């Protein structure tokens, strides 16, 4: 009797310990199934730029699918700029609202990510525990998956898609487009008023500056270093010299600049300019389809390659539905969602999944994606130039505004 009590006590304590530890590990790293259970019935407020109909439609499609499969309600809060959302999280932190934040998921990259990460406005790390991330994303495939404009991602955001700068031209008015920064200037000199670029600090405008810098500066390796560790003035001198010349023969004499890719596309269609830029590789096909561009418009890239980057989804620190947000991020990484996203008339955004990790059937589906008449293939897109360190953006923008916006 005595023994048995002792035995049972021991076994009890063992059981308790086990139960305790298992509970402990559960609380520490819940399994994906736990996250799925927790996410059921949650409403995720997804703050994402809402300026493009086709992207909004895609998000709505994802919302329907998430409702069906996971019982997660995805609400798209349409922003004009990701920084609106960053500001809102900051306002909430100011007011001490550390739970139940208004934003559960945010679409961002680069500077906005760095600002949020540096000011502890993000929750995580979470991306590496997403099943689809583990299965399909190869971190070594691209530097931009782990270095967002040079800021280490550290699992604080989950990749969503990849973008690369492309140029568009109307083959009717411009059969052989300029394929380098230098040729662009030559063309502008021969055809005054037909070349321009978006106004920095609009991100595409800043990207144009980086693109030009890559082609004009001698030692491109220096660009991957933080800007305060190199000689900014010497490195960027050729860039300003170039822009001085370009502006004198640019659209509206370099006195105003388009606000972004959308305005450039409009100007291209109005025939005010001859070359438009976009960060969206299928922009031309999508806009032709919508009747916003002539069907003689085609995309192209520079011979030496163009700047490319990855855009991400992140979860603010004060979201109350982090499980739901992770389920959304995971779904967005599924082959189903990524294949649909890459569809040129849906969105045309490049997949972040590693092709080799896909099943044969999924590979087949990727191969079957129609390209759209004005979309370049992966091979045609050629080499992707990496983003310089994120500190360059602000330095270039400041200097640009100092020189040209006063």
């Amino acid at each position, binding site marked *: 009797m005595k023994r048995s009590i002792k035995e049972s006590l021991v076994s009890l304590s063992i059981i308790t310990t086990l139960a305790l530890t298992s509970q402990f590990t559960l609380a520490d790293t819940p399994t994906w199934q736990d996250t799925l259970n927790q996410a059921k019935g949650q409403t995720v*407020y997804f*703050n994402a*730029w*809402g*300026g493009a*109909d086709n992207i909004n439609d895609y998000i709505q499609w994802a919302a329907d699918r998430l409702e069906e499969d996971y019982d997660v309600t995805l*609400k798209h*809060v*349409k*922003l*004009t*700029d990701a*920084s*609106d959302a*960053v*500001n*809102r999280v900051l*306002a*909430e*932190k*100011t*007011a001490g*609202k550390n739970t139940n934040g*208004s*934003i559960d998921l945010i679409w961002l990259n*680069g*500077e*906005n990510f*760095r*600002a949020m990460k540096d*000011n502890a406005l993000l929750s995580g790390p979470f991306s590496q525990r997403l099943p689809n991330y583990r299965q399909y994303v190869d971190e070594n495939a691209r530097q931009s998956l782990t270095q967002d404009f040079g800021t280490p991602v550290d699992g604080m955001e989950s990749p969503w898609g990849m973008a690369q700068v492309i140029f568009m031209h109307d083959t009717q*008015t411009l059969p052989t487009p300029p394929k380098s920064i230098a040729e662009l200037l030559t063309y502008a000199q021969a055809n*005054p*008023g*037909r070349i321009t670029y978006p*106004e920095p*600090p609009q991100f595409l405008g800043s990207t144009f500056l980086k693109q030009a810098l890559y082609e004009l500066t001698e030692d491109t390796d220096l660009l991957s270093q933080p800007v305060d560790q190199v000689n900014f003035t010497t490195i960027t001198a050729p860039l300003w010299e170039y822009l001085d010349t370009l502006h004198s023969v640019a*659209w*509206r*004499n370099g*006195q*105003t*600049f388009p*606000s*972004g890719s*959308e*305005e450039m596309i*409009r*100007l291209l*269609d*109005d*025939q*005010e300019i001859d070359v438009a830029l976009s960060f969206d590789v299928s922009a031309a096909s999508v806009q032709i389809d919508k*009747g*916003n561009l002539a069907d003689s418009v085609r995309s192209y890239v520079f011979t030496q390659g163009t700047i490319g980057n990855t855009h991400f989804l992140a979860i603010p620190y004060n979201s109350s539905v982090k499980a739901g947000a992770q389920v959304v991020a995971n779904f967005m990484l599924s082959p189903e969602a990524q294949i649909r996203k890459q569809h040129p008339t849906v969105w045309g955004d490049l997949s972040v999944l590693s092709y080799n990790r896909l099943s044969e059937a999924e590979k087949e589906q990727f191969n079957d994606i129609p390209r759209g008449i004005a979309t370049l293939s992966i091979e045609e897109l050629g080499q992707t130039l990496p983003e310089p360190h994120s500190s360059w953006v*602000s330095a270039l923008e400041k200097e640009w505004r*100092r020189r*040209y*916006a*006063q």
Partner: protein
Amino acid sequence: MPLTYPRLITWCIALLLMVPIVVGLISTILPAFHYFPPLNEQQLSFAPWVELFSQGEFYASLKLTLITGIGAPIVSLWLAFSLLAWGYQRPFFRKIEALLSPILAIPHAAIAIGLLFLLSPSGWLIRLFSPWLTGFDRPPNWISVQDPYGLSLLLALTVKEMPYLLFVMLATMKSIKAQESLEVGQALGYSRLTLWRKVLIPQLYPLVRLPIFIVVAFSLTVVDLALVIGPNTPSTLAVTLLRWFNDPDFSMRFMASAGAVFLMLCVLLVIVGWELSHLLTRHLTRSGRSNGKRKGITDNLLRLGAGVGVLTLLSGFVALLLLPIWSLTRRWRFPDSLPSQWTWSNLDRAAPLLLELTTNTLVIALFSTLFACAVSLIMLETKRHSLASRHQTTNNHLFDWLIYVPILLPQVGFLFDLHVLLIYLNLNGDLSAIIALHFMYVLPYVYLTLKSPYLAFNEGYLQQANRLCYRPWRNYLHIKIAMLKPALLTAFAIGFSVSIAQYLPTLIAGEGRYSTLTTEAVAQAASGDRKQVGSMAMLQALFPILVFWFAQFIPSRWTRWRLAIQKWRI
């Protein structure tokens, strides 16, 4: 209104308004002195100011802001006076009056996009004459919009502000007995325009002073209009500040806050300067006004103004008419003067969202405007009380100034801080928060529109009614409110359209969870797609236009309908 404790009510409402305003004000000012705990900055310093004053872009933006912000009100005022002097009580002018409301109703961003399409080198004006007259197969490389001097911005501001001023002036015409003065003056041999210049405008100006100040403040701080049609190298100060506030580098916030405080001071200084120059002008023209001359060269200024005014109105209208065309367009390239392919798909795409957007928009506009009307009536009644008891003609209590603070402050910084307050109160993201914030922006316009007619009301009618049958509330509603119906409905219509046009307050208080036609339109304007903007702006303008139309249509028929219904009942 038979109020029991007028003073107490005044103070309660004033206090209720004061809290958000003071909080917003203080927390705009503190970061300007480097105090912002969330970023761990609690050391007061002048560093943000030093930084601000070292920015070349600040001075360039400021110059532009002053040019457009002072130029536009002056031009608008000149054109509004001219049009009024030229057309007042002439039959065709009535038609122009009826056409003012669409321009008042349409949101700024939409009209800017319309004007941009009208005037740009690839715009409709040039398309109309190309290539058969101009020889342009492709748009010329002109700078006809977004010009570095801000002239196109000035025009856009004028297109939007001149109708507002004209509208306000028309509403106050009764109280200066214009008709009588004109008849007497003309019998004495004065020409029409001279009479206006010497007699009527000097009487009218003090009555429309506050609307003018609102216009001045608006021109100096406007963001959406300047974003679309203003120059961008540099932009106006308000746009530059917005960019600094939104910079991912949070340390820019301090400089931006300093800039916001500076802009606020600018608004105040410009208004003071405006008033001083008015005094000066009045002094200088005093002898001229009483010299007895029946005609003068300066009459031509009014004549010219009327011509320019008609042109300005016209360009506003054409810009408005172009938007619906865009919403039905599939292909419309330079130099076609009309679309080459038409489609319903732009509207189809907008359709599924419409129900939700429209409901939100209407609920917010309706409630905020109704509240604003109610509060304005109460405040005006207490004001009437204090005026009657002290036998003063001008007595502005605190409230009169307080309500203008929200429209005088640059929205960017002020609203960020209000948002923080809302979060503290746990009201963020709520429909009631949006309505409250809209209320703050609607109230000044409603109050202002209602003020002169309400105070000018001949209280004798009400007193007589009360003597005959003492039912103060019923008599107040059936006599005073009924007689003030046109003014009330006009005030409601203005408030309604102000609410509909609000972008930042909706976004910030609603945290983007409540979309309205305007937030959707501005989000799409970000893409610059004229087709989408066209369809959204059309819808956005639809309701205010309807309400304005009702405001003009109902009062004149109300009594007839009421009597008809009564007869039918009997």
